[in-house]
């Protein structure tokens, strides 16, 4: 198993009830696999999963990237600052 840290903001922080979570994943899990896992466990996330971008260690990544132990993964919804 690998352990990654998830970071949630705004609607996702409220949907998951926390800004940070550690999760165990099977080795070889991709970004897409993570998104599907989260969608299966959270309806609010499932409803907006198509607009979520993944950033690993502060860089956006493609969803087919295999996640690594220790990764810090931010789930980024469309931004609305300014």
């Amino acid at each position, binding site marked *: 198993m690998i352990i990654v840290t998830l970071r949630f903001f705004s609607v996702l922080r409220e949907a998951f009830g926390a800004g940070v979570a550690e999760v165990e994943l099977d080795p070889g899990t991709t970004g897409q696999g993570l998104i599907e896992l989260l969608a299966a466990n959270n309806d609010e996330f499932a409803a907006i999963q198509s607009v979520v971008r993944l950033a690993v260690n502060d860089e956006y990544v493609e969803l087919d990237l295999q996640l690594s132990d220790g990764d810090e993964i931010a789930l*980024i919804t*469309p931004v609305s*600052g*300014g």
Partner: protein
Amino acid sequence: MLQVWIDITDQPLNASEVHSFLYESNGGGVCVFAGVTRLETNGKISTSLSYEAYKSMALKEIRRLADEASQRWPILRAVVLHRIGTVVVGEPSVLIGVATAHRGPAFEATRFLIDELKKSVQIWKKESFEDGSQEWVAASWQDLD
């Protein structure tokens, strides 16, 4: 050459300090934009906005935007400050400014920075209305192209 002041802070933004920083460039043209919490949005009365940032990534993205702007315009100094937490009506959530030798590029680069910040910097805004309701401002990535 380019001097950039970037910050994401929960403290009130200080326009006077922004102006002083830009004046010190000895450029002739200084443009400053302030995004202020508006009283009315779509007919509803707001009391405040609340901002949340993914600070590490947002700071990197702001710096990238400043670098891009400085490649497009002859910028002497630039400032991008964004407040997080609660920002009541009449207070600024964002201050952006650019100093250039002549005024045209200062206007253009400041406009570029606020337009791009709204599209790509990892900050989110929740509106609070006087009826007690709250909502995260809906956005899409479509503006990103």
